């Protein structure tokens, strides 16, 4: 079996029993990136020299018997995580030449674990988008059909793992930005509970929603990555002070008696029926594994997109006010005065979608409108969250499609923000409630991958991973590799 068909757990075994070295493994993936990424555009920066240097260090640690599960394993970071000494662009012209003066906590933790960074992955500008078409560095192509989008905003993270240019990557999820691209690219993606993973050094979009997580081939690999990523961080005031379990510990548990809630709102109008059929087959698999299906309702979930498009833009308009052309980032040429400096630096540095969202947020927060928009959205957010609370009194997990459709053609939705926003109709509610959610490959519709979404209760990531792992033991959708990248 080729190296890139192996999971991280398998590669980790190979490294530990020294049948391969980290340098060999790293070079294998660097060669694949060199060979294939021109078809995908999934990387903004490839860090060849740094990766090989890290790999040599990792091989030393392994020889000394000091290795952890991820020592010597190559990964790549979404270009939203600050990396000391390596360019961090956030997919924006605004940060085209930005080299962060420090590492994000997530990056630091992977370094401590001995993981290798192959590079920084393309993404929608400032994580605002559902197709990766808003990136300053151009769109990312879906490896299953390069005319299609990979989803977004973690489009590079999903496409690179789907094409096995890297065994796993990191992403961030504000309204579906890990789960939706994972679904559209046929890989496994996990958004943890809000506050589970430190946001320090992760460029902020909407601070009450943003959360980082892994994109991997399997649930088992996601557990290995989350073991490293999760945990309290004094540098992030929203990170939660709560012990981190070993996420691999419960993977083997059987699913007899597991109660799965199916929200009727996730199977109604707007869902591609071919996608619905795939999800139904996945549910049938769970029934065979001993799970019990419970019909539930999330009556306010229809309001999640409207509430999100107040909360997220409002917070983004505030967070992105830091880009002023003075302290770092893009500055316009020959400003005539300070206001001209601000306006033109921002006007020229940000792309159209980012500007749209800043303007919506600015409007929603402007004098006289706060109660009608932001406060109203926060109240609706409570209703959405209460729906989930009630549902979890009767079920262990909630399942449904991750996305209402499979990957769509590039350009198809980019002129109409509303259609684009509706790509995240099933994922956004989870962010508003702060709950953990996963997307797991469940089959194909129209020859493109379909993801099953699994939503859990607060801090129930171990159960989500268990539920996903058991499915992957009984199906092989997660092992499928797109033609042309084998």
């Amino acid at each position, binding site marked *: 079996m080729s190296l890139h068909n192996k999971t991280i757990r398998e590669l980790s075994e190979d490294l530990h029993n020294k049948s391969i070295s980290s340098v060999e493994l790293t070079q294998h993936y660097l060669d694949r990136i060199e060979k294939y990424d021109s078809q995908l555009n999934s990387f903004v920066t490839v860090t060849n020299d740094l990766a090989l240097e890290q790999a040599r260090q990792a091989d030393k640690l392994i020889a000394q018997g000091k290795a952890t599960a991820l020592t010597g394993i190559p990964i790549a970071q979404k270009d939203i995580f600050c990396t000391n000494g390596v360019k961090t662009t956030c997919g924006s012209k605004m940060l085209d*030449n*930005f*080299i962060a*003066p420090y590492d994000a906590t997530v990056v630091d933790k992977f370094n401590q674990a001995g993981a290798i960074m192959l590079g920084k992955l393309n993404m929608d500008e400032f994580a605002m988008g559902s197709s990766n078409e808003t990136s300053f560095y151009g769109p990312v192509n879906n490896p299953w059909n390069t005319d299609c989008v990979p989803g977004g905003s973690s489009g590079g993270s999903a496409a690179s793992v789907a094409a096995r240019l890297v065994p796993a990557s990191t992403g961030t999820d504000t309204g579906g930005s890990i789960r939706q691209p994972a679904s559209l690219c046929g890989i496994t993606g996990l958004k943890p509970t*809000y*506050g589970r993973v430190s946001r320090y050094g992760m460029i902020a979009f909407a601070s*009450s929603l943003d959360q980082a997580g892994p994109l991997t081939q399997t649930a088992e690999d996601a557990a290995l990555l989350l073991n490293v990523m999760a945990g309290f961080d004094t540098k992030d*005031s*929203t990170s*939660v002070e709560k012990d981190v379990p070993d996420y691999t510990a419960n993977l083997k548990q059987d699913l007899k008696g597991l109660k799965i809630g199916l929200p009727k709102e996730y199977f109604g109008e707007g869902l591609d029926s071919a996608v619905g059929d795939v999800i139904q087959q996945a549910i049938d698999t769970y029934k065979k594994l001993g799970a019990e299906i419970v019909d539930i309702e999330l009556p*306010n979930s*229809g*309001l999640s*997109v*409207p*509430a999100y*498009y107040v909360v997220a833009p409002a917070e983004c*308009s505030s967070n992105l*006010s830091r880009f*002023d*052309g*003075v*302290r*770092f*980032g893009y500055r316009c040429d020959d*400003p005539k*005065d*300070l206001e*001209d*400096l*601000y*306006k*033109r630096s*921002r*006007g*020229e540095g940000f792309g159209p979608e980012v*500007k*749209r969202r*800043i*303007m*919506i947020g*600015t*409007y*929603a927060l*402007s004098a006289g409108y706060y109660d009608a928009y932001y406060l*109203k*959205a*926060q*109240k*609706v*957010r*409570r*209703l959405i*969250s209460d729906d989930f609370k009630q549902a979890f009194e009767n079920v262990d997990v909630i399942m449904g499609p991750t996305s209402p459709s499979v990957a769509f053609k590039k350009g198809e939705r980019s002129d109409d*923000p*509303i259609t684009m*926003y509706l790509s995240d109709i099933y994922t956004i509610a989870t962010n*508003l409630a*702060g709950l953990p959610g996963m997307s797991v490959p469940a089959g194909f519709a129209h020859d493109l991958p379909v993801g099953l979404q699994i939503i859990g209760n*607060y801090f129930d990531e171990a159960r989500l991973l268990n539920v996903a792992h058991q499915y992957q033991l009984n199906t092989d959708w997660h092992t499928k590799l797109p033609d042309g990248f084998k």
Partner: protein
Amino acid sequence: MSLERDDVKKIAHLARLAIDEADIPGYATNLTNILNLVEQMSAVDTDQVTPMAHPLDAVQRLRPDEVTETNQRDHFQQHAPKVEDGLYLVPKVIE
């Protein structure tokens, strides 16, 4: 509701964003559509609902008032567009 040309200009000014005159009609249409989408929220009665500021209803954590940061001015200013003698340079503000 519908945003007009002047509304867009005003919002862009508040956000300190220079936008091209030619792009204003496009923004007006898109922003209006987004606000109409958002408007769906007004169908629900939320008078008795407590606003949700944080998913876990957490409050700001406090720490002892001790200096924990070291001075890294030169390091941070390496990537600033224009600096001199440790100061950030901007166009003249006071005549």
